């Protein structure tokens, strides 16, 4: 039996109407209780950040994070047990977007 721990999930997203309920729905489907939720503009220009605290097994958290990241308007999603700071995540998000827009040009996101 895998042990349950408190995990912190972070997701970097476009600022789109309805995305909060879309992400919350993934937790509902798996009967996961959200202990804490923060949504705010991230330090990446135009990108929002979700911070979600939930208690579960790593196997389930991994599945949930991949299903969050699968959403069209989600850029990247991560999870961690302890409070590893987010500088690494921010670097990954910035590099991902720069690489995408270098290859494809500007996105006309509304």
């Amino acid at each position, binding site marked *: 039996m895998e042990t349950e721990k408190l995990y912190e999930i972070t997701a970097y997203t476009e600022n789109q109407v309805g995305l909060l309920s879309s992400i919350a729905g993934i937790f509902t489907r798996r009967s996961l209780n959200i202990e804490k939720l923060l949504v705010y503009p991230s330090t990446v220009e135009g990108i929002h950040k979700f911070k979600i605290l939930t208690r579960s097994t790593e196997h389930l958290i991994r*599945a949930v994070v991949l299903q969050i990241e699968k959403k*069209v308007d989600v*850029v990247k999603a991560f999870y961690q047990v302890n409070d590893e700071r987010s500088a690494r995540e921010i670097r990954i998000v910035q590099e991902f977007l720069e690489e995408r827009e270098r290859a494809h040009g500007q996105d006309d996101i509304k």
Partner: protein
Amino acid sequence: MTHKISGAEILLESLLAQGVDTVFGYPGGQIIPVYDKLYDYQDRIRHILVRHEQGAIHAAQGYARAGGMPGTVLVTSGPGATNVVTGIADAMIDSTPVVVIAGQVGTSLLGTDAFQETDFIGLTTPITKWSYQIRRAEDIAWAVSRAYYIAKSGRPGPVVLDFTKDAQTGMAEYREASCSFIRSYVPVPKPSEEVLEAAARMIVESRRPLLVYGQGILLSGAEKALEAFLDKTGMPAASTLLGLSALRSDNPHYIGMLGMHGNLAPNIMTQACDLLIAVGMRFDDRVTGNVKTYARQAKVLHIDIDASEIGKNIHADLGVLGDAREVLEALTSRVASRKGGDWLQEPGRFHAVEQERVIAPETAPESGPVKPGEVVSVVSDVCGREAIVVTDVGQNQMFAARYSRFRHSRSMITSGGLGTMGFGLPAAIGAKIAAPQRPVCLFVGDGGLQMTMQELGTILQEQVGVKIVLLDNNWLGNVRQWQELFFHERYSATKMVNPDYACIAAAYSIRFENVESRGELRPAVERMLADDAPCILRVHVAETDNVFPMIPPGKSVNEIMLNEKEWFTNGN
């Protein structure tokens, strides 16, 4: 001076820009402006008027599955929108590209419980790949181009556009939009060289490899790449329900269908292989049986376009993220040519047992009532394996899947993940409209036919040449089978008192053939398939026939019932 046109016209221009020439729909109050403009576009957009919105979405699904292009649905707000919800859920779980455009009340009325208002975005968020409410005429072209790009790219799926009435009537300049990039969305991940090398190594080192594939082969157009990979590696391959027809039934590497009512060989060999290569499939529980015992002896190499599928149900020793065709081509060039050896003799043993104990009694009985497997087998035979097979859900579906033989890709259209009864008839209509040059044969039970039987009206109006093979046993057969086997023969609410189908066919001016006995079957099927007109062939089949083999729920994939009394044992 800029030239402004209405939002309704911008929508239709945007659909034409996407190559849409067929729309399945039903008008209503909050979508009238679009229908009004559609009057001027009748020469460019064919509108199929269904009899219920559920028919529109299933027809669009059948159209997308047969033709490979997204299906388009146009409905009104409120009940029009909620009536397509089942089909959206079905398209989501079966990765079918459809775009649903639903009317919505004007923006000033949103949230006020206005007449025929419903929160359609809220209702469909968990079952769509993307949903968007269009509130301004200026946003239509942008939203439509995104909708089609998202619906068909990567792992396909349904998209909802909730189209407010004032956006339909508002005036704006039309500028053609085309979307081929969304910065937050990676539809087709590229596998790294290291991962491909590691996968090739696993293949080279294996002695008893088994490849299992799903609809991903059809969706990525990987049929030839799969054949080439199998020819080079000499390994056996088995299909999921949705992967059927990706390989021809007579491909020498093909060993049958996986899962609860699949063939013996692939299910048993799953528990004997040393490498399981899964391509474009998601280890549904109807495929895996008990996951705790599934392929525990094997290494698992999972190739899929969707990262969230890898490791979701079955642990993957290696996941390869990417398009099935690209990955298979890359692997084919990385592995040495070889022959299968003794491992390739295995399926023959299991096929012989299944042929004698299950297939022969079902498809070639000498006496007694007509068997459903026999009907499927005769239809497959008479149409020379040329038909697109569409099924409803239940025993008819399993008999159709087990006993149809395929020569062409995209020839099996069935509701897999959601198991939607009533899917068959409208899906067959959509399939025939997408592929008018091919025969389309629907296998449907008496229960499922009556769930969406109103679509016979659509067949009448549009003269869609669907061949409806009604396997009539006067029972909800699949549930009846479970009640017999697992619920002590307590037949709760599964007996059906059915209408006179000859009268129903006559009411819709559809040709009708009735088969009560074995001698009538083949001539009736030959008459049915002699032309391209719609036809109902009602066959009174054995009332209490069951689908076998069967892996009962919760059992391992090598714990298989051959009939009501006998289990497969590896010695017999």
